[in-house]
């Protein structure tokens, strides 16, 4: 079994290291050591995307081991996964990296953001996913001014994803109130395959 030590590595380095190792050691089990829970969530999510199994073992508050293994004998390469993730051309994602839209007056920007999200809930075609990073991460946590709208979007099948490093930076890890955590590696991947709306 191949072992990867990603302790001390900032998001999304553990995911990148693991993805690379999976490519080089196709079919082999991998044991990845990381120092935070968000990294384990990112690794589990990546394993799921690659149709692999992930088992998380918490050794201590600052050490986690994630065992990534494949159930079947079939080998999965990242190229094959990319192929399965072709999306219909009309599918789009919405990316929010601020809690206020546009430059100028910030209060107006926050009003515009609320209007934007409300209008989004009434679109005939909803986005496939919504990504939140930097101050956008303030929108998916408790006390978010748009929490109800985001929950309504999630109920209708919109996947809400917030950047893990941002949640950690703002000290909001325990306050996430809608959707899940993702990493920059996945954000770049999604932005490259979907039509991206960034208000």
């Amino acid at each position: 079994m191949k072992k990867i030590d990603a302790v001390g590595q900032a998001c999304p380095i553990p995911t990148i290291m693991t993805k690379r190792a999976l490519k080089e050691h196709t079919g082999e089990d991998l044991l990845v050591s990381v120092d935070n829970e968000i990294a384990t969530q990112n690794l589990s999510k990546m394993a799921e995307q690659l149709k692999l199994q992930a088992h998380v073992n918490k050794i201590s508050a600052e050490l986690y081991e994630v065992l990534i293994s494949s159930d079947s004998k079939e080998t999965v390469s990242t190229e094959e996964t990319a192929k399965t993730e072709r999306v219909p051309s009309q599918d789009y994602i919405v990316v929010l990296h601020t809690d206020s839209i546009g430059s100028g007056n910030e209060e107006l920007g926050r009003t515009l953001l609320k209007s934007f999200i409300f209008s989004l809930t009434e679109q005939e075609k909803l986005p496939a996913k919504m990504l939140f990073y930097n101050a956008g991460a303030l929108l998916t946590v408790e006390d978010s001014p748009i929490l109800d709208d985001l929950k309504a979007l999630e109920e209708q099948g919109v996947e809400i994803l917030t950047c893990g490093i941002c949640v950690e930076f703002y000290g909001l890890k325990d306050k996430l109130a809608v959707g899940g955590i993702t990493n920059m590696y996945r954000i770049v991947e999604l932005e490259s395959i979907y039509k991206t709306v960034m208000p």
Partner: protein
Amino acid sequence: MNRKHYGVITFPTSQAAAAAEAQVKAAGYECRLIPMPEQISAGCGLVLQVSVEQTLDIQKQLRDRQISLEGSYEVWFENRKKFVQKMEG
């Protein structure tokens, strides 16, 4: 708030809508500011979203308080398509 069927009250300006929001909230009604439905006006102001059952009551109370408003509308969705109709009151 029912997302598929609600009322909106429109005002001469977005600032007037924001002022009315504070009063309507203080009176104990559920409400929020949302963008002007394009079926009502092409302008991009804000309007007050309220429960459809309470729309005309709220409109009357605002008029009684001399708050200038333009009118009330019923908004509903069928197959994700939006419909808007003027409410008389």
